[in-house]
Every structure is written in structure tokens, then in C-alpha cells.
């Protein structure tokens, strides 16, 4: 089935009976339908999800979520110390100018340079290395956010080099505690997962859902 004209609600036509592993109130993304299936396999509700044509993301496929009024955040990136983008979540990003790879590189490069620059320009620091000489993560002063008229970017870096970036509405307050919480979530769901190889992009649905839920609750 083509699946591009997903307007009708007849789940039988979409092959709902092909639902495998029907579980208790779990949502199944089947072709263009969002199906809620009850424990006994009965289909309770079936409606087409927001059909937004997106280029396939090789990093972390994120199902398009309709922006609710409580949804403040636009995007989330998590990088490791080698520049690998471990996670990219997107909730509200109408304008996309670069493909994923370039976008991640740009973001990482931007932060790398900003960190270096802010540390070198620190008026309170006695010892200044030369501009361009890499610093140890967490050393010296560290910037934590910048704001423009359309968005605010909040940044956190752990001493182990894990960088968490959250882009939100410009009137968002200080998100340092929230970023720490996201780091905790990363530890619980990703690092502690024995089947996850460190240094590779994260493919963990539970982590994605938990992060989505948490970010949606941010004021």
C-alpha cells in the first residue's frame, strides 16, 4: 500500500490485522496509522498521524509530534567527545537548511569554538592558553546558554565530554538543572543498557519517549 493518502479511518484497509505483538494500550505506528490496541487485540482507536514529509533521519528517527501549547522546546542534541551525535530530537523546526550530517557538524563546531572563545575571553582567569589550543572538558569557565530574538540555546558539558544542547523558546529561564536531569536520564536509559555500544548513536525508544515527556513538561 502506498500510504501517502492516509485520510481514511478504516483500519482494516490499512491492514490493522497485521499488527504484531499487540500489547496493552501500546501505540503502533503502522504505515500511516496510529493504532491503539487493547490487550485482547481489539483495535480501540485508529487515526492517521500528522502527515509531515520529512527527510529520513539516519540518527534518531523522531515521529512528528503535533506541537501542543505546553511544548516549549524546539530541538535537542546530545554529542559525545568525538563529535558523534548520539541523539537528535526535533519537536518544532519549520526551517531546515542543511542535511542532518551538516547540521550536526555545524552545531558541534559552533559549540566547540564558543567554548574555546568564552574560556579565552574570561577576565577572571589567570592562566590563559593560546586561542586554538584545546582545553580539557570542564576546565576553565564554561558558557551555558545564548539567546537570540527567536530562540534560546542551552548547553551543558560533562567532564566526560557528553554535550547536551537544548534549543527552546527565547523566554525560557535557566535550564541548567533540566539539562542535568536529561544527563541523568541518559545515564539511566542509555549508559546502563548493556546492549548499547558507547560512542554510537542511541536507538532506544524508551529513552526517546522519556525525554519527550520530560521536555514537554518544561516551562
Amino acid at each position: 500500500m502506498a500510504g501517502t493518502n492516509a485520510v481514511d479511518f478504516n483500519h482494516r484497509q490499512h491492514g490493522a490485522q497485521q499488527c504484531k505483538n499487540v500489547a496493552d494500550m501500546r501505540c503502533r505506528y503502522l504505515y500511516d496509522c496510529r493504532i491503539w490496541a487493547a490487550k485482547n487485540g481489539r483495535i480501540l482507536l485508529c487515526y492517521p498521524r500528522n502527515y509531515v514529509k520529512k527527510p529520513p533521519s539516519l540518527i534518531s528517527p523522531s515521529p512528528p509530534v503535533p506541537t501542543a501549547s505546553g511544548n516549549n522546546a524546539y530541538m535537542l542534541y546530545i554529542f559525545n567527545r568525538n563529535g558523534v551525535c548520539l541523539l537528535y530530537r526535533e519537536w518544532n523546526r519549520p526551517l531546515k537548511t542543511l542535511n542532518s550530517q551538516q547540521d550536526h557538524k555545524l552545531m558541534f563546531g559552533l559549540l566547540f569554538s564558543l567554548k574555546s572563545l568564552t574560556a579565552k575571553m574570561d577576565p577572571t582567569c589567570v592562566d590563559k592558553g593560546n586561542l586554538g589550543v584545546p582545553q580539557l572538558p570542564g576546565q576553565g569557565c564554561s558558557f551555558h546558554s545564548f539567546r537570540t530574538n527567536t530562540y534560546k540555546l542551552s548547553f551543558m558539558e560533562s567532564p566526560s565530554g557528553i554535550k547536551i544542547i537544548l534549543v527552546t523558546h527565547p523566554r525560557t529561564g535557566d535550564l541548567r538543572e533540566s539539562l542535568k536531569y536529561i544527563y541523568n536520564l541518559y545515564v539511566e536509559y542509555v549508559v546502563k543498557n548493556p546492549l548499547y555500544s558507547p560512542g554510537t548513536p542511541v536507538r532506544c525508544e524508551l529513552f526517546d519517549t522519556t525525554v519527550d515527556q520530560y521536555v514537554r513538561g518544561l516551562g
Partner: protein
Amino acid sequence: MAPVAPRSGDAIFANVERVNAELFTLTYGAIVRQLLTDLEEVEEVNKQLDQMGYNIGVRLVDEFLAKSNVSRCVDFKETAEVIAKVGFKMFLGVTASVSNWDAEGTTCSIILEDNPLVDFVELPDTCQGLYYCNILSGVIRGALEMVSMKTEVTWLRDMLRGDDAFELQVKLLKQVPEEYPYKDDE
């Protein structure tokens, strides 16, 4: 905003989920036993334990940083203190002490009086040469590598071999600052 102070090892230890000590000790014992059966050579087992410890350390460091709120340590002395006081307390429930600093401050000894891994353990004659707790040296090495420090960790004293305490020597080989990972032509 004032920086949040690091939490002491006791406070975190009280808050994390804990597992039964005997279960932990017996599980570790089972692992070592199985390695001895599979690999037969004591040196191979030592190396494998070190490698396992390394893989654990690489992941453990993130959990440590997330739960303990320590910021970057200023120098290696502070690092060793943090490992002994906060790290060991948080994960093993025992506090270690640091001593025997060398002149440059790059080598120190971490001394463990009490080690939950070796409860009930006695090394038989066939296993002389085995570093039973070698996983700990791997863990420290792996964790420090993720915070840009290349180290070498060896055992100086081992209670299972008749000494009075466990002593780990941690030697800092070099600090590796992070470099821009992408090539400039991209």
C-alpha cells in the same frame, strides 16, 4: 547561580539503589571462576578482568558524574581523592585512602582496608599469580580515560596474597585534551 557543591559519597550511597553484598560477592566470584575455567591461564584471566573493568569504567564514569555533581578536578591529586572518597564509597560502599604521592604528583596509591569483592575468598595454590580484584584496576583506568587522563593502574599489595591491605598504584601517564574531531576540508 552558585555552583552546586559535590555531594559526599555517603549521601549518594544512601540514595542509590543497593544490591545485597553477598549476591555481589558471589556473582563476582562466579565470573572469576568461569574465566579461570574458560581461559585456564592466570595471566589471561588477569588481562580479561582488566578489559572487563575497562568496559565497565567507560560507562561508570557518566553515572558517577551525573550522581555526584563533581566538577572538573583541578589536578590529579584532587582526582585521586575524589575516586577514593566519593567513587569507591558510592559504588562499593567502602572508603579508600590515598597516600604515597611522588614528587611530581603523578603517582599515588589508593589503599582499601575493606573490599567487598573478596569476602569468603581464598586463593588456591593453582591460582597463584591471579589478581582477583583486577577488575577494579580496569574500572579506574577506563573511567579516567573518559575524562582525558591516560593512566596505568597496578596492584602493589593484595590481601589474598598475604599482605595486610589492598593497594592500587595509579600513575598518570598523560592528559589528553580533546581535539576538534572533524577534518578541516569538510
